């Protein structure tokens, strides 16, 4: 185990910033803490447990151009079919672009389609173990696990990213990582784990990528007392996370309760926005749209969510999940039944952001306690969760 003195943190991050982009929790002028690109001199905010949003945005971009298309004159370079993950920009030269626009509608213009996949090296510093685990759960979906498709856009960024997690010192009352197979010092998904000890951080490399980071001169070997201190911090934090619900049989119970009227009661105060899914480190659903300007266009993907009333709306006007309670049921079932059935793990790492940021404080722990357990006969007009 290594030790990094508190006053060496800036130097370490500065060192990283020389080679890649550094992202860290930073407090804005409005007092809001978010993961933001870090630049030397910026204070890293580790006192506030969780930034408002998870760090997923830096790997699964909220909006990302993945194809560019336009028209090129005959004789110009034809579309280069490229399945590699290197960045490639089509028609980057303004004059060329102008020419392409001018000829876009002529019979001689050739359609040029190019994938765009920009993935600069980056280090995400200061995310909590739950956020790091969130990436592992998304990795299954985008990484072709179990015979599904491999997503070159997510994976290019994922492979170019190093995750430096920091053990949680003071878990919140809304944290429930220990109920979903994680913990405040979980190492899953992270490359390095920092634990705050007196005067600095006890630091462990967890992967080869992490090992490389610790080669930096700012680190010294940790003293035995520091190692023990770090262990105490981890244990104390773990003890502070309350058990929230029982995972035993949850998948079967959700399946059995699919038509249970309790879903209506639980969804009453849901306003069908997408906040819970967008602040979630695991929710990954997206939309694909084309944005076209003057004969040149981009196909982009943007975060989308199953609470969006038009998410499943079909052209005919038919909507398979037309009611609030249907959409509400989908999110929890996806995380604890649909996803586990496909990927043998859960789609939740227990950060509790969906609880704290829900405009009406819908509590996933309560939803799962009620719907993820055996339901006895429920009268149609039961009270809310009570």
């Amino acid at each position, binding site marked *: 185990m290594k030790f990094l003195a508190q006053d060496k943190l800036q130097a370490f991050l500065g060192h990283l910033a020389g080679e890649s982009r550094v992202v860290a929790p930073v407090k804005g002028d409005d007092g809001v803490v978010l993961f933001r690109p870090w630049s030397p001199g910026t204070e890293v905010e580790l006192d506030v447990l969780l930034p408002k949003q998870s760090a997923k945005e830096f790997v699964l971009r909220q909006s990302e151009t993945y*194809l560019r*298309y336009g028209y090129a004159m005959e004789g110009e370079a034809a*579309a280069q*079919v490229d*399945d*590699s*993950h290197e960045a490639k920009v089509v028609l980057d030269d303004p004059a060329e672009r102008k020419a392409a626009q001018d000829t876009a509608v002529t019979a001689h213009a050739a*359609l040029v*389609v190019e*994938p765009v996949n920009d993935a600069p090296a980056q280090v995400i510093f200061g995310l909590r173990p739950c956020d790091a685990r969130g990436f592992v759960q998304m*990795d*299954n*979906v985008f*990484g*072709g*696990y*179990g*015979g*599904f*498709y*491999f*997503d*070159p*856009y997510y*994976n*290019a960024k994922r*492979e170019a990213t190093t995750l430096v997690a920091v053990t949680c010192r003071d878990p919140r009352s809304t944290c429930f990582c220990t109920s979903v197979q994680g913990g405040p010092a979980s190492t899953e998904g992270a490359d390095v784990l920092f634990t705050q000890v007196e005067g600095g951080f006890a630091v462990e490399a967890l992967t080869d990528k992490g090992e490389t980071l610790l080669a930096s001169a700012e680190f010294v070997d940790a003293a035995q007392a520091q190692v023990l201190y770090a262990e105490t911090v981890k244990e104390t934090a773990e003890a502070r996370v309350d058990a929230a619900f029982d995972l035993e049989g949850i998948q079967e119970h959700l399946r059995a309760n*699919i*038509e249970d009227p309790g879903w209506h009661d639980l969804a009453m105060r849901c306003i069908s926005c997408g906040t819970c899914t967008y602040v979630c480190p695991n929710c*990954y*659903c*997206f*939309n*694909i*749209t*084309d944005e*076209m300007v003057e004969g040149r*266009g981009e*196909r982009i993907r943007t975060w*989308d969510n*199953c609470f969006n009333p038009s*998410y*499943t*709306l*079909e*052209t005919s006007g*038919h909507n*398979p*999940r037309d009611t609030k309670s*249907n959409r509400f*049921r*989908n999110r929890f*079932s*996806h995380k604890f*039944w*649909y996803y586990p*059935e*496909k*990927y*043998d793990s859960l789609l939740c790492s227990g950060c509790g952001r969906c609880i704290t940021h829900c405009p009406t404080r819908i509590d996933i722990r309560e939803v799962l306690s009620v719907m993820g357990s055996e339901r006895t006969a429920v009268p149609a007009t039961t009270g809310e969760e009570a």
Partner: protein
Amino acid sequence: MASTQNTAGGNGKSRLTFADVKAGVTTAAAGTLAGNPYLPQIATIIDIIDETPNIKSFRVRFDDEAVMDALAFDPGQVGQLGIFGVGESTFAINSSCSEKRYLQFSVMKAGEVTSALHELNVGDKVGVRAPMGCGFPVDAWKGKNILYIMGGIGSAALRATISYTLEHREDYGDITILYGARTPLDLTYKYDIEDWQIRKDIDAVITVDRDFPGWEGRVGFVPTVLEEMAPKPANTIAITCGPPIMIKFVLQGLQKMQFTDEQTYTTLEKRMKCGIGICGRCNIGPRYVCVDGPVFSMAELRELPDEM
């Protein structure tokens, strides 16, 4: 049969990396673009057939000859047909699996993408990602009687399968086609219908919802006609596709006639985006229509929440 690897709960579950994909271990089925399942192949429209007042069939050919040559798909599989600048939509591949010159998609003018497709001419470029999803288990059906029950543009989803069973006629028992539309004008593939009616080795019943000037054929809703036909369930597979309300009554009818859930198949349509089981839009409970479907047996559907 072309093999599809994209079935649910695949074996040897493990995560892939770029290294794997470059080495050729890939799960994508889109021709030479195996490494990037989002990237459409550019194709040219070589023919457009006006099927009905609001349905056109587009025959498209990949610009890359190697992709065209390598194309193989199962009857019932689908593809994403798109226009750059507008977007993509999912359509059944309704040309025969043995057709090597083109892929055919039938498009009913309704929304954003379909309306834009209707504006296209022969020679225009489209983007195609195909094949996707799982087809019908036509091999497992060998030796059985096949009953197709279709309404409106539902015929597009079953056309490749009908072609397959007719091209392998000796492998199957009786083949019956019940096809209905609102009016004679709304019947698709009139060239197929003529062929079916000439052939002696199949039984084709064509019906329209109500009397229409000049129509001398059968009149009646598909579920009603099905009841009158009273097909026997013994050794028979029933496959239905059409408007949701028709499917609903057909399934009820089949159940009444003692067809089991394992004997009954349908193919579903859902709003889709990625088409590769990731974006999370087309799921019905734990099943994704794009990769686990669009073909489902009634037995499979019974397991799912009521989100059709």
